[in-house]
């Protein structure tokens, strides 16, 4: 069971969360004139790294907040959690 530290609810099973995915993807601004290529990149393209990965989870069974998690995709070790806009890069732990 991966254990995620919700900034509001504390350490909880990942089963309480729903996985949203890569947190580094920024949605092109609403009303902006982003190119088709930018939209394609946002919707379809993923770095899919083997190692530290910043990702978004929603605490769906808890406070319903979306949180950002830095997790190693190779070891499943979670080294940092924060709010969606926090930048967690650099907080990668031993596992990476």
């Amino acid at each position, binding site marked *: 069971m991966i254990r995620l530290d919700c900034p509001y609810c504390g350490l909880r099973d*990942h089963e309480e969360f*729903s996985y949203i995915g890569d947190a580094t993807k920024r*949605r092109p601004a609403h009303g902006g004139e*982003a190119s088709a290529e930018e939209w394609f990149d946002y919707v379809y393209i993923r770095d899919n790294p083997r190692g530290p990965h910043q990702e978004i989870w929603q605490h769906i069974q808890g406070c319903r907040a979306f949180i950002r998690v830095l997790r190693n995709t190779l070891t*499943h070790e979670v080294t940092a959690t924060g709010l969606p806009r926090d930048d967690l890069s650099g907080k990668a732990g031993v596992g990476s």
Partner: protein
Amino acid sequence: MRSPRSLIPSVLLPRRAEQPYRLEEGGAINRLAPLPFTFDGTSYNGYQGDTLASALLANGVRLVARSFKYHRPRGIYSAGPEEPNALVELRSGGRHEPNTRATTIELFAGLEAKSQNRWPDLTLDVMQVNALLSPVFVAGFYYKTFMGLPGWRFYEHFIRKAAGMGIGTTLADPDSYDKMHAHCDVLVVGGGPAGIAAALAAGRSGARVTLLEESDALGGRLRSDRETLGGAPAMAWVRSAEEELDSLANVTVMTRTMGFGYYDGNVIAAVERVSDHLATPPAFAVRQRLWHFRTKRVVLATGATERPLVFANNDRPGVMLASAARSYVNRFAVQPGKRAVVFANNDDGYATALDLSRAGIAVHALVDSRPGGNPDLQVRAEAAGIECLTGSAVIGTRGYLALHSVDIAPISADGRSVTGNAFNLSCDLLAVSGGWSPNVHLHSHSGARPVYDPAIAGFVPGTPRQAERSAGAAAGSFALADCLRDGAAAGAEAAGLLGFDAKPIEAPVTELRGAKPLVALWQVPGSGKKFVDLQDDVTAGDVELAHREGYISVEHLKRYTTLGMGTDQGKTSNINGHAIMAEARGEPIEAVGTTTFRPPYNPVSFGPLGGRDIGRHFAPTRRSAMHDWHAENGAVFVEAGQWLRPQYYLRDGEENVKSDFDRAITREVTGTRAGVGMVDVSTLGKIDVQGKDAAEFLNRLYINGWKTLAVGRARYGIMLRDDGLVFDDGTTSRIGENHYFMTTTTANAGAVMSHMEEYLQIHWPELDVKIVSVTEQWAAMALAGPKSREVLAAAVEGLDVSNEALPFMGVRETTIAGAFARVFRISFSGELAYEINVPADYGRLVWERLMEAGAAHGIIPYGTEAMAIMRIEKGHVAGGELDGRTTADDLGLARMASSRKDYIGRHMMGREGLTDAARPKFVGLVPVDGKTRARAGSILVADPSTPPPVPKLGHVSSSAYLSPTLGHPISLGLVEGGMARAGETVWAMYPLRDEAVEVRIVDPVFYDKEGERLHA
């Protein structure tokens, strides 16, 4: 508690009371509680404290199984979960359990066990012929043959019959299971000396400690070895330690609980065998329980497993592990034989020989493969009259159904060759020890990799990957004193790391023995079948064959020969097999490596993993506020996700059979269209949306515009995903200045809520919008039909429901039966209709009030079937059309899209693939013959006679076997060209039923195209 005897059917009452191999005294058994049991139909007696294995041995039963492939006679080989041979079918009927290890079954009165994988019985098992064919049935032989006619399916039939072991029942299990979630600071796995010491050290510091022990009691090897601690028998120390642990409120000791898997987040899963030691679980008790331990630190004190020596015919009944032989004499007071030979490459042999002779077993020889053996211990053995043969080995055994003698010869120092003449020594017990392998299973589960330690010729824990440390034999330290010290240190360290002040405990002094290291002996010279994996009949020869054929990686070796793939997962065999491969490759074992241990540590029943989430409770059930009314009024319910919804209502005298429910559905449609009907729509998703930017938010969510919607008005909307495909639809009403009430489809209620939360929390946090799901707050009912206004008028309190006052798409608040009600004049059925929302606790009250008010107009409740037919008649899209693959344009809804704003999906919906003219588009379909239904799921094609592959024009997405309104079947579908082909005919193909229906493409709105009824 019922007395054991009262449980026993008279047929089981003991016929042969005496247990010829039971010692007069000693052992941790209760001689006052004899327990009758049967094996292969014969009745025996054992004692409380026995395992099935010890009880069988006490009764002189040595042949208990047949091997997997060659059906060789096999006996009891171990005294623990590592048992490769003695697998039996336990219990009967719905409680039948195949492949159960006799060595871990706690004996209970009336126990029934049968041998397996033999026919007709153990002694004359006809499949023994396989043994004759064994020269052909080598590893992987089946990959090289059975390829020709009549084909694999033919051969497979026989192979499968021969393979497998126990027989699985098809009867339902009468017992129940559940789950527990626990948290602790320190979890200690294993209740031997190391684990006990760890629990004491951590427990005394005040940390929350749990100690898990798989077997029925603490003690580990101490239950079986004649160790002393502080001058007294070691078990006395165990008992006092147990008392102290019980006295500590912060410590929990759980026996009969196996930690079977070490998962991420330092979570250990365990199974508690709550009632397996009883004939049946007591009332309200479960059979087994799954535990999740969320831990801060883990101490793995799981001990070590002794391994066999690999020599010719090392599998006969009577050959067993030395540690097992000691368990049987010391713990169970059973003689596993009368005349023994002990064969070891380490000091264990001496302790074993002494224990056996102390138990009155004639030890004919102690064979120590080490040149020179261990002189100190040899002195003691010889003092006890035991002849010690060092630098020698057992190179073969004799006997068939049971061992009757062994061949012994001197071997070279490197153990590779026989250096002198063999001689034969009679015996019925051969105790072997090839050294010990630490139980690194959970350590491996946690993601860590064990490393090879030549000192013990075994794999020991590597660098921990999680908050874990191994201790005692599990860490490769085998001397009792070391185990205690190591365990205590590990426990103290774990608590210390968590900020508890833990002091190391003083370990009691142990009896010191001049220990001498083992000398690895992986394969004993000599010819004959040398079994490495007893369960899967993998021999040293098979390992060498795998090497010859290039399956030289330990992983290929495993898969090609099935080494270590049996129910024991190679606990006794892996290391020997890998070492023999290493020798063949001429590489060191560390270079060859080992395979991965995966959960579970020992096999786990499915039951506890399912817990109570099975059968009716596989998923929770969701009911509307009017559920009971529906049930009382003949509703037949259907699952809609987790909801139960009325599908149709049967009347007295009607059965739930097609003819009757077709009548009911037609009745509900015509009743509604002609007069008035009411349907429960509480399951629709409902979301309360508030905030200064609410309108802006809706404008971004939906493809159509929302800025102009006035308070008191509702509007239909379509949502896309960012990829430009349709996500969901529904109506949203403006109920206040900055206050909206949104509805979603039943299926997408949860998804839409999360979708909106994601945009608000992540993409557009600047918007002042607050949303909350109010699906459960409101009971919702749709009142539909030309008479609906009269009914509503009669029910509402002081609200003008005239067309002027409450026009189509109008929203008003009122009370009905005194309850607050929100009335939406919207329609799914195509009739004049109102959706009425009331606080759920008033749902039934208001429903009944409306029914009462409608009685005069012959109001009829209708279910999902009638609702579906009416929406098809009206050409509304629903699940069949909103399948995640359609665009707004495919569904004829593109005109709704606003060109003057940005919205989710806008930027990708224009991609060529989504605007391709060839895309099927939404249409209505009617049978040309006016009577044959084109079923949902039919494929639309131009010419029914085209041979496959047939070009496809589209498909039928929804269909009504009969539109009571139009008097013929109708369907909705998507077809290439869409309405541009109106009037043309195509064929709806349903080859699964050999149906082909010619259908005409028509407007999807079959009913009241101008919407007069809606606006009436």
